[in-house]
C-alpha cells in the first residue's frame, strides 16, 4: 500500500465527519458555500471556518505532539494571552515589527521551556505542571497589559490577523504553513517515531538510548511556539491584546481537536493532519451554531450532542462494528482492539 493510501485511510473518519458536519450546516443554511471577494480577500462561511479555526489548529499542532508523548498542555490558552500581550506591548512601545514578533515567539518558547523542565526534569505530572502556567500565565499577561485591552494600530501587525496573501487570509496561511513544516520536520526526521516511542513506553525508550528528557522539553517548547503564533494572530485579529479573554478555554478545544483527530490521550501514534481536520470540525460546529440562529442558551447542548455523536461514531468499539458490517474489507488493521499482552 502506498503512503498516500495509508494516510487517506488514517484520516478517512475525520474527513467523513467533517463532510457530515458541513453537509448538515448547508442544509440548515443554504447560502453556506457562497464565496466571494471582499476587500481583496476571500469572503464566505467556509473561509470563516478556516480563518476562525486557525488559532485552534495551531494549538492542536503543538498539542498533538505533547499528547503523543503521553502528556497534556493546559497552558496554551494562557500562553496565547502572554504572547499576544507581548506582541501588543512591543508594538505600542515602538520596537518595530520584527523584534516584536521575535519577542512574542521567544515568550512562547520560554513558556514551553518552563513546562518542559517541570515535566521532564522535575517529574511533575504534565496536567499539573501546565496547570500552574495556566493559572499564573493569565496573570503574567495581565501584568503586561495592566489589566486593560492594549490596542494598537500597526498595519504590519494587523496583517497577521486580518490581512491576506493572494486573497487567502493570513491566519489560514500561517496555520497551514506551520502544520506542513512541523509535519515535514517530524516525519522526515526520526522525531516522530521517537516521540511516539516516548509516549508508549517512556522507560523502555530511555533504556534504548532515546534522549527522552531533552525530547520532552523540545515538544513542550514546540507547543509554546504554536501557542505564540496563535496568540499573535488572536491579538492582531482584534488589534489589541485582551489578556483576560484571549485563548480562554481554547486548550480544551485544542485537546478535543487532537482527540477527534484520533490520537490517544494515553500517548503514542499521532497524526498531525488528522488533528488539523479535528480543529476544522470543531470550528465548523461552532460556526454552524452561530449560523443556525438558535438562542445562545442552546449552544452548549448542541455542541455537546454533536461532539458525543462524532466521538461515538469514531469510538473503537463502534468502528469495529461498522467495519464488521461493511465486510468489503476484512483486514481493517489498526482498528482492531489493541491488546498489549501477547
Amino acid at each position, binding site marked *: 500500500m502506498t503512503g498516500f493510501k495509508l494516510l487517506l485511510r488514517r484520516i478517512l473518519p475525520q474527513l467523513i465527519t467533517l463532510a457530515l458536519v458541513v453537509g448538515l450546516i448547508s442544509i440548515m443554511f443554504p447560502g453556506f458555500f457562497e464565496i466571494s471577494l471582499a476587500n481583496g480577500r476571500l469572503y464566505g462561511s467556509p473561509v470563516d471556518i478556516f480563518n476562525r479555526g486557525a488559532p485552534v489548529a495551531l494549538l492542536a499542532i503543538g498539542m498533538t505532539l505533547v499528547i503523543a508523548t503521553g502528556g497534556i498542555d493546559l497552558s496554551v490558552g494562557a500562553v496565547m494571552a502572554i504572547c499576544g500581550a507581548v506582541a501588543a506591548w512591543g508594538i505600542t512601545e515602538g520596537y518595530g515589527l520584527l523584534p516584536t514578533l521575535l519577542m512574542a515567539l521567544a515568550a512562547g518558547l520560554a513558556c514551553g521551556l518552563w513546562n518542559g523542565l517541570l515535566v521532564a526534569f522535575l517529574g511533575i505530572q504534565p*496536567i499539573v505542571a501546565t496547570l500552574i502556567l495556566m493559572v499564573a500565565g493569565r496573570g503574567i499577561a495581565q501584568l503586561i497589559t495592566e489589566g486593560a485591552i492594549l490596542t494598537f494600530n500597526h498595519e504590519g501587525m494587523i496583517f497577521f490577523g486580518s490581512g491576506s496573501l493572494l486573497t487567502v487570509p493570513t491566519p489560514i496561511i500561517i496555520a497551514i504553513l506551520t502544520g506542513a513544516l512541523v509535519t515535514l520536520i517530524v516525519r522526515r526526521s526520526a522525531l516522530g517515531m521517537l516521540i511516539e516511542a516516548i509516549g508508549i513506553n517512556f522507560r523502555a525508550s530511555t533504556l534504548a538510548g532515546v534522549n527522552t528528557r531533552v525530547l520532552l522539553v523540545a515538544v513542550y517548547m514546540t507547543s509554546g511556539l504554536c501557542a505564540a503564533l496563535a496568540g499573535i494572530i488572536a491579538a492582531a485579529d482584534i488589534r489589541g491584546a485582551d489578556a483576560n479573554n484571549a485563548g480562554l478555554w481554547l486548550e*480544551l478545544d485544542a485537546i*478535543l481537536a487532537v482527540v477527534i483527530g484520533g490520537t*490517544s490521550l494515553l500517548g503514542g501514534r499521532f497524526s498531525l493532519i488528522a488533528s488539523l481536520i479535528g480543529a476544522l470540525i470543531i470550528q465548523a460546529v461552532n460556526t454552524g451554531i452561530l449560523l443556525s440562529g438558535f438562542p445562545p442558551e442552546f449552544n452548549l447542548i448542541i455542541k455537546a450532542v454533536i461532539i458525543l455523536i462524532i466521538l*461515538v461514531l469514531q469510538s473503537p468499539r463502534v468502528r469495529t462494528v461498522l467495519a464488521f458490517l461493511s465486510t468489503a474489507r476484512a483486514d481493517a488493521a489498526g482498528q482492531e482492539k489493541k491488546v498489549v499482552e501477547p
Partner: protein
Amino acid sequence: MNSRLLPLLATLVIFLAAYAVCYAQYPAMLSTRVIGNLLTDNAFLGIVAVGMTFVIISGGIDLSVGSVIAFSGVFIAVMLRDTGLHPLAVFAALLVLTTLFGAAMGGVIHYLEMPPFIVTLAGMFLARGMAYVLSIDSVPITHEFYEVLQRSYWLMPGKGRLTLIGGMMLVVFLAGIMLAHRTRFGTNVYAVGGGVQTARLMGVPVGRTTVGIYALSGFLAGLAGIVFSIYTSAGYSLATVGVELDAIAAVVIGGTLLTGGSGFVAGTLIGVLIMGLIQTYIIFDGTLSSWWTKILIGMLLFAFIVLQKGLVWTSGKRRAAGG
C-alpha cells in the same frame, strides 16, 4: 511505616508548616473563625474532590463536576420555585439524576472505549447547557427548610462556626476513606487504575467498576450541588465554572497520581485545605492586584508540588540508604 503513605505524610507536613508561616504573619489566621471558614467555604469543593479522587485513582478524569454542581443548584431552585415539593424530595430526585448522569458517562467510557477526558468534557457542556435551559437567571431559594439548614451550626469558642455543610464534607471524607480502603469496590478502583487490561485478566469487573466510579462522582457532584445551594441559597447556571480544575489540583496536591493507581482520599482533604489556605492568605494580605493574585496562586501551587516531591524524594532516599 508503609512507604505508600509517604506522599500523604509529606503533604500533611507541608500544610502544617504553611499554616505556621501564615500564623506568624497574621495571627488571626489561627482563629476558629478562619478554621471554620476553611471547612465551610470549601465544603462543596471537598465533596466533589472525593469523587474526583476515585476517578483519578482509576486512571480517569471527570471534567463535568463543575457544571453538574451548577446544574444541581438551578434544578433545586427551579423545582422549589415551581413545584410544591419538599427540599428533601428534590434532593433525592437530584441525586438520582446526577448519579445516573455519571453512570451514563461511565457507561460510554467503558462500553464505547472512549477517553474519559472527552466524554466528561461533553458531559460538562451538556450539564451546563441543561442548566441554561432550566433558567438563565439566577434563582433564589426561599424555602424555610433552607433557613433551618443554614442555621444549623455549632458555634465554636471564638465565634467560629462549624456548619452543617462543613461537617458534611468531613463525613463524606470519612466515608470516602472507608470506601477506598475497606471495600472491594475501593480495591477494584485501585486495580483498574493499575492497568485495565491486567485488572480484567485478574477478574476485576472492569465495566461495573468504571460505571460505579463515575456514578459515584456524579452522586458526589450532586451532593456538592446541594451543599453549594445551601451555601448560597440560590441556583445559578454560571456558578462553579472551573471547579473541576480546582478539584483536580486538590486531588493532585493531596498526593494522588494522575496516571492512576495510587493516591489517598485523606490526602485530598489536605489538598483542599491547602488550596483554601492559599486563598485565605492572599485575602488576608489584600494588597495584590488581580494579576499578581493569579501569579502568586500559580507560584504557591508550584512551591507545594516541588516541596512535596523533594520531601518524598529525600526521605525515600534516606530509607533506601538506611537499608
